[in-house]
Structure formats: structure tokens, C-alpha cells
């Protein structure tokens, strides 16, 4: 060590930069492209968004004027902002628990199958996950058609009255929930069954010796051990649901009567239809704080340090 230090001091100053470059140059070379994109297209826009949230942007000159909390006050004072937030919350509060429940049930059932059966069902469940939201939205809008749609025909088969679906303010948001629930479970099932596979066999054997039946085994043994994966799925599902946009844009345009205007759709409208960039940025920031807050809350409430 001492030798190294004395040698270092013998050399002249330019070589210090040289040695730093020789030592770390390749590391920076490997990291640089990603970091360039990270700063230009991720970090800068987020910081700029914070600035815009407190500003008024003149579209003609591109100049910003500091307006303090005005944009935030405007958000809180606008009824539609609260409606949009409420719609996103209602959608999330229904979709997330129900889809997690479906994921757990399907995973438990799939996990016991021989591997060919597992692959078949997982593939079927996964199909919507590789399909663009634009395709799913158009197909479901066709299924929801009140006159010649497949869903009303199927309802008729079991003697239920035809519905207006997307045209009915009370049913429009639930219809979008149906779209999410009937197709969004593939990734969750794949992740959860993988996690189930990593639980050591002895854990199950021990439970059986203790006389646990299948249900008790799942409830008392499997699920607690799967808590980290379930937490991950919970947070991802919550964030994803809260950001509902594509189906709204393509199927309902936020209607009827703002029944499906979600917060992201409202932000989009204010930014790119009304060109209220400052107002939209302020709402996006509020939205971000809410999302991070919820994720953090879920993490602190449900996280555990189970080890096995």
C-alpha cells in the first residue's frame, strides 16, 4: 500500500488523469450510453415536469412563467379532476384484489398439473399479455356492441336482458373492469407458479405429516411463503390499474358523462387536446405522489422477511 502511494506521488499530475482514465475508462464506456439516455429521456423530463407543474407555459414563445401553486390549486378546485381520480381509484380497488384472487386460484390449480398441461394453460392465459392494448380494446368494443355484440347474445342464451355496456354510465367502468379481469392474469400466473416451484418439497411434506388438507396447505403454507411475490404482483397491478388509459381512449373517450374518465386520460386530454401543459404537469405530479405513496404503503404493510 505504502509503496503504491509513494509511487503515485512520484508521477507528475497529468498522469493522474491518465491513470484514472486507464483504471475506470472502460467502466464509464460501458455505462455511458445507457446513462446518456437515462439523463436525456428520463431524468431531465421528470425534473422539467416538476418545473412545469409550478409554471405557465407560453406555447408561442416556449417561455415559462413561475405561477407558484396555481396549477395545483386549479386541480383541487376542478370537479372533473376529482371525478377522474375517483374513477381510477374505483377501477383499481375492484380490479386489483379480484385479479390477484384469480391469479392465486389459477396458479394453485395449474401448479398441480403435469408439465404439458401447465404449458398449455399458462400459454392460453398469457396470450393477452403479448397483445397490444389497441387490439384488445377494439375487439372488446365489438364484443360489447349493444345490438349485434357477442356478449349480449350470450346473455340472451341464459335469458338475461341485453345491456348497453359502454353506453350506460353505470356500466361503462365495470365493462372496462371486465376487459381487465378476463385477460390480465397470464404474467401473474407465470410468476406465482415459478415462485411456488422454488418452495422446497420438505415444506409441503411437513404440512402433510401434520395432517393439513389441500386448502389448509395452500392457505397456511403456500401463500405465506409466496408473500414477496404476491406483494410484487400487488404493487405492479395497482400501478398498472391506476394508469388505465388505452381502453378509455379507444373505447369510451372518457364517457358517457365522464363515467370512464380516468386520471391519466384526463391528464392526456388537458395536455394534448387543451394544451394546458402546466396544469397537466401539476396533475401528473400529484398522480406520481399518490402512486409512490400507495406503493410504499403496500410495501410497509405487506412486506415480510420470510426465509426458507
Amino acid at each position, binding site marked *: 500500500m505504502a509503496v503504491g502511494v509513494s509511487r503515485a506521488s512520484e508521477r507528475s499530475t497529468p498522469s493522474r488523469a491518465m491513470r484514472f482514465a486507464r483504471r475506470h475508462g472502460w467502466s464509464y464506456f*460501458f455505462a455511458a450510453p445507457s446513462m446518456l439516455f437515462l439523463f436525456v429521456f428520463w431524468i431531465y423530463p421528470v425534473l422539467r415536469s416538476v418545473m412545469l407543474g409550478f409554471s405557465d407555459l407560453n406555447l408561442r414563445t416556449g417561455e415559462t412563467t413561475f405561477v407558484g401553486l396555481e396549477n395545483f390549486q386549479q386541480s383541487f378546485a376542478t370537479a372533473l379532476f376529482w371525478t377522474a381520480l375517483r374513477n381510477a381509484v374505483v377501477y383499481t380497488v375492484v380490479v386489483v384484489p379480484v385479479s390477484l384472487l384469480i391469479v392465486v386460484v389459477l396458479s394453485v390449480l395449474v401448479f398441480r398439473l403435469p408439465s404439458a398441461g401447465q404449458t398449455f394453460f399458462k400459454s*392460453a392465459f398469457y396470450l393477452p399479455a*403479448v397483445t397490444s392494448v389497441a387490439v384488445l380494446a377494439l375487439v372488446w368494443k365489438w364484443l360489447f356492441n349493444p345490438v349485434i355484440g357477442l356478449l349480449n347474445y350470450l346473455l340472451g342464451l341464459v335469458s338475461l336482458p341485453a345491456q348497453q355496456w359502454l353506453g350506460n354510465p353505470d356500466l361503462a367502468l365495470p365493462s372496462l373492469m371486465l376487459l381487465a379481469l378476463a385477460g390480465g392474469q397470464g404474467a401473474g400466473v407465470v410468476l406465482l407458479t*415459478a415462485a411456488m416451484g422454488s418452495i422446497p418439497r420438505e415444506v409441503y411434506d411437513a404440512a402433510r405429516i401434520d395432517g393439513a388438507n389441500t386448502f389448509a396447505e395452500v392457505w397456511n403454507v403456500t401463500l405465506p411463503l409466496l408473500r414477496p411475490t404476491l406483494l*410484487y404482483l400487488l404493487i405492479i397491478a395497482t400501478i398498472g390499474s391506476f*394508469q388505465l388509459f388505452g381502453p378509455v381512449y379507444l373505447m369510451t373517450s372518457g364517457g358517457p358523462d365522464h363515467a370512464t374518465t380516468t386520471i391519466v386520460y384526463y391528464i392526456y386530454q388537458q395536455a394534448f387536446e387543451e394544451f394546458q401543459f402546466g396544469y397537466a404537469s401539476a396533475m401528473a405530479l400529484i398522480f*406520481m405522489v399518490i402512486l409512490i405513496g400507495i406503493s410504499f404503503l403496500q410495501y410497509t404493510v405487506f412486506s415480510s422477511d420470510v426465509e426458507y
Partner: protein
Amino acid sequence: MAMRVMKATAYLILSVWAILTIIPFYWMIVTAFKNQVAIQAIPPDWWPSPPTLLNFQVFFGAAPAFRWLFNSSFVAILTTVATVTFATMSGYAFAKRRFPGDRILFWLVMAVLVVPYEVKLVPLFELSAHLGMIDSYGGLILPAVSAPFAVFLMKQFMTTLPSEIFDAARVDGAGEWSLFVHVVAPLATPGITVVTIFTFVDSWNAFLWPVIVTSSIQMRTLPPGLAVLQLQSYTDYGLQMAGSLFTAIPTIILFLALQRYFLQGITVGAVKG
């Protein structure tokens, strides 16, 4: 006996759910090949008889479908190549090399992961306008390159590789670049495969940003192209389903061909549990 009943029930529930998931796809395909009369028929036919290509002819006439297909392919391929290359490089740097600032930089990668995409929309649009990238391939591709999640996944994967191999290659006199190309990248192939597949599918299916950054019909990729199609022919479901099928087919084929990677790959980098 009880075992057998339980097993049958399991298959029944799974099958019902699988049918529920697949029916929309089935209905899209059937409708795409039906003529206008059959589409309006009540009760609906479960099979197009006779099947017709008319909807596809209308689709190719009403929309620059092959231009959209080219745009989607071009954008998805370039986005994926750039993202995977850069994420592999930086994943290696963060996992296997120590350099001043490495921790703070990786922390920044993690930090932007929790920021919802919508927060960036307005500034990203403004930035794209300044850089003259509105309605261009640059605008479609560059903001999507090197997504932090890809960097995060590659770093996670690289961490699992044994450092001794790298040291041994260095002792053998391998330069840093050839070490990366001939040792690191081949060892990281499973991680690279996963990031490649998911980046490609995400890029192909992207909707929100392409809607915002493109303004001319010619520059649309397939998913926002469908939105145009829907506006033009609001009630022509045959046309819409033909366009939807045209959009969905490439990723569905990719999925069926690479099923194994999709179904296993998703667990790379996921939390243990």
C-alpha cells in the same frame, strides 16, 4: 375418488378460464373473415361461412397497412437492438465493475423506475419538438431506448455470473472490449434473450407515446394506426377486426415460437419468493 373429482374440477375451472381468455381472440379472427351480412347476423355464426378476404382488402385500401407494418417493425427492431446493447453494457458495468459514481447512477436507474410514465409525457413532447423529432422515427425510437427496467434486469442477471471467469480471461490477456464481446455477452445470453423478447413486444405494442409523437397517418405504428382506423370507420367491425388481427399476429407468432422463453423468462430478475 375424491382425488379424481378434485382433479376434474381443477381442469374444469382452468378450461373455463382459458376459453374466456381465448374467446375474444377467436371472435376477432372469425369476424375478420366474415362478410358484412354475417357480421350483422343474429344469432351470430361461430364460423365464417363462406370465409372471405373482403375485410382485408378494405383494410389494405383504407389504411397504409404495410407502411404501418414497416414502421412497427423498424421501430421495434431498432429500439430493441439499442436497448439490449446498452442495457447489457451498463448491466455489466454496474454488476461487475467498481467505479466512482456507480452507486449513485444505479440508484438513479432505480429511482426513475417508480416514476409513472405519464409524468414524462409533456416534457418529452416538448423535448421531441425542440429536437425536431415530432412525427419522425427518432421521436418514436429514442425516448424508448434503454428503458431503466432493462438496465435493472441486466444488472440483476449479470450479478449472478461468476466473476472468476472474467478475471481468468484478463489473466489470459483479453482486452476489456473483447472480454465483453467474447466472454460476458455469451454468458449473459439467457438474460439478453429475455430482455430482447420483452423489449420487442413492449415496443411493438406501445400505444400512448406513439399516439402523442406521431401526427401524420404515414408515421403511425400499427397500434395507434388502429385508433385512426376506428375513427374513420366507427362501425365497420369486419375492417376493424382485420386490422386488429394484422396487428396482433406478429407478436402472437413470436410468442408461440418462443413460448418457453416467455413463460420462464418473465421470472428472471423477479423477487425470490
